[in-house]
């Protein structure tokens, strides 16, 4: 019963009319047991949104529902949620056991049950040997697990994660990511996970909310977000290296970009100024006879299994990803590349919204 409902949620700091609006009408329905990641660049409002669900920030517009109850006026303690903070927020003067037991003791859970729950969580998180230690005696990864343990024992309706992996080093991050996934598969608790890292988002999310400047740009599964980005922001934010976004003038199967006129494998959805998007991994060295674009190579990056080729097409910067087994082009050389039939994305120049292609795109 931990479904979350966000209805036109808004946040304004300060009093009108001079107030500063940081969240503009976010709406989303999150099913019980779903793992949703809120991802976006720094300052986009994702943490603010999470804290509004937690009750740590007031909701100045719209409604938030948890488990069927509208929680706008409820204090954090009354919302039946648990939160994992970026800096762990463990009580430094208490042992690991007491940290995890704190919330349960407040709710007058009988000591035997507290012991049982803490032991169970410690077993899942491999914290059993550390129960009597203080947080300062633990490593970063262990502290993060204690923070998760504290959330688990409460058995809440919703887990909230506020960039919990950002303070860990790269290797630990990957490890902890897997642990979070495992945990979710075992416990099936509705989870909202905030991060600025799109890799974390893509790997953990059942669905993602992509945010930018206080607005929800898109909500969808990682596949949907990756293959059918709803705006140029999403297109450029998800995927590494980022999607090539080319602004030019389309007419039928011709696309005027700078000083070049590119041949398109399929007609553009409309005539006029438009933004063409195509991912670096979908561009390829042109086969003989295919409609090709001319690219002047500027730089190369060798990444082991693949190569990144950077260059100019019609004056615009374009990135191309090719397999490392193919012979690399030379810098300064002009090569012919081709764009795929079905992997082109079109966006409106002014609204930045996706424009439907003329024919269906396979998912």
């Amino acid at each position, binding site marked *: 019963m931990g479904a979350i409902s966000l209805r036109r949620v808004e946040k304004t700091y300060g009093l009108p009319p001079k107030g500063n609006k940081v969240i503009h009408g976010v709406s989303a329905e999150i099913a019980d047991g779903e793992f949703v990641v809120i991802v976006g660049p720094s300052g986009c409002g994702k943490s603010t949104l999470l804290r509004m669900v*937690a*009750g*740590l920030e007031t909701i100045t517009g719209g409604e938030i529902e948890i488990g069927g109850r509208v929680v706008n006026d409820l*204090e*954090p*303690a009354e919302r039946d*949620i*648990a*939160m994992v*903070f*970026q*800096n762990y*927020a463990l*009580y*430094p*003067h208490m042992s690991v056991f007491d940290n995890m037991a*704190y*919330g349960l003791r*407040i*709710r007058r859970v009988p000591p035997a049950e507290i012991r049982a729950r803490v032991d169970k969580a410690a077993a899942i998180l491999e914290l059993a040997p550390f129960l009597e230690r203080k947080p*300062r005696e633990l490593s970063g990864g262990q502290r993060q697990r204690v923070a998760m343990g*504290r959330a688990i024992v*409460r058995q809440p309706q919703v887990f909230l994660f506020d960039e919990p992996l950002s303070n860990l080093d790269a290797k630990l991050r990957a490890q902890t990511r897997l642990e979070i996934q495992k945990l979710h598969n075992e416990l099936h608790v509705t989870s909202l996970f905030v991060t600025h890292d799109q890799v974390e988002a893509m790997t953990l999310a059942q669905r993602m909310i992509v945010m930018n400047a206080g607005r929800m740009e898109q909500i969808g599964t990682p596949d949907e977000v990756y293959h059918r980005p709803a705006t140029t922001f999403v297109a450029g934010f998800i995927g590494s290296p980022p999607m090539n976004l080319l602004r030019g003038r389309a007419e039928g199967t011709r696309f005027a970009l700078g000083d070049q006129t590119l041949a398109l494998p399929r007609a553009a959805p409309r005539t006029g100024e438009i933004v063409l998007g195509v991912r670096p991994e979908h561009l390829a060295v042109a086969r003989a006879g295919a409609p090709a674009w001319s690219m002047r190579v500027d730089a190369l990056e060798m990444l082991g299994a693949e190569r990144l080729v950077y260059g100019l097409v019609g004056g615009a910067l374009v990135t191309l990803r090719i397999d490392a087994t193919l012979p690399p082009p030379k810098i300064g050389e002009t090569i012919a590349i081709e764009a795929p039939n079905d992997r082109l994305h079109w966006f409106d120049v002014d609204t930045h919204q996706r424009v439907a292609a003329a024919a269906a795109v396979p998912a």
Partner: protein
Amino acid sequence: MEKRVHFGSRWLPYALVLPQIAVTLVFFVWPAAETLYYSALLQDAFASKVQFVWFDNFVTLFQDPHYLASFRITALFSAIVAITGLALSLLLAVFADRVLRGASVYKTLLIWPYAVAPAVAGVLWLFMLSPSIGILTYTLRGLGIDWNYYVNGGQALLLICVAAIWKQISYNFLFFLAGLQSIPSSLTEAAAIDGAGPVRRFWTIVFPLLSPTAFFLLVVNVVYAFFDTFAIVDSTTQGGPAQATQILVFKIYQDGVQALDLGGSAAQSVVLMIIVIALTVVQFRWVERKVQY
């Protein structure tokens, strides 16, 4: 901590250190040595006869009921000033912490009394609690309390306590505020999500984390009560009535400067020196313990 870089010069460091060392030797070390020396002497006021008596002065001191009374008064006084002062400023700091509007205004208004001289603080409260014309005296009379600290020793003690606490609140407040602000807000947020209300959060999370600051302030306040309050006593009760407010440091002054009892006041000074040293050592040792977050 040492620096790995240093300048080579034979005479310069001595020249630089000289002014401070000179003043220290002349006005600190030498008089302190003299105090130690005098404390072992029995000398009459005209210095015509001098007798070396080792620890006799100390023995006399600790058998003197006036001295013991002074000790008790000082202990009581510092306990009241320290505990009340700390409790009040903690309360104010907690209330002022993270208040959205006007936090800095409250802070400014509550810390400037630090600038007031203890002597002036004494005079202000003397004026308000003067048995004849004091405005607070008038209010107390209206409530049925007969206020006259010239006659009532307990009231005199109360007077100097109030003046001392009034002056010290701003200092404590400032440190408590800084201590509160160094506790990451995510800790109190986590506790709130765990279900702890504001009072429980304070006692189980905030106060334990504030204890290093509280302890440090306790030591500072005790030192303050022992030494810096001389001016308050001298400007209000002068140790009276009947030695009811004769704190140790004031007794030294009275016995030394007014009664010219060199040996006795020197012995008292030595006792006080030992107490300061003990307190300073405690302060240095314990301030080393910092809590990590």
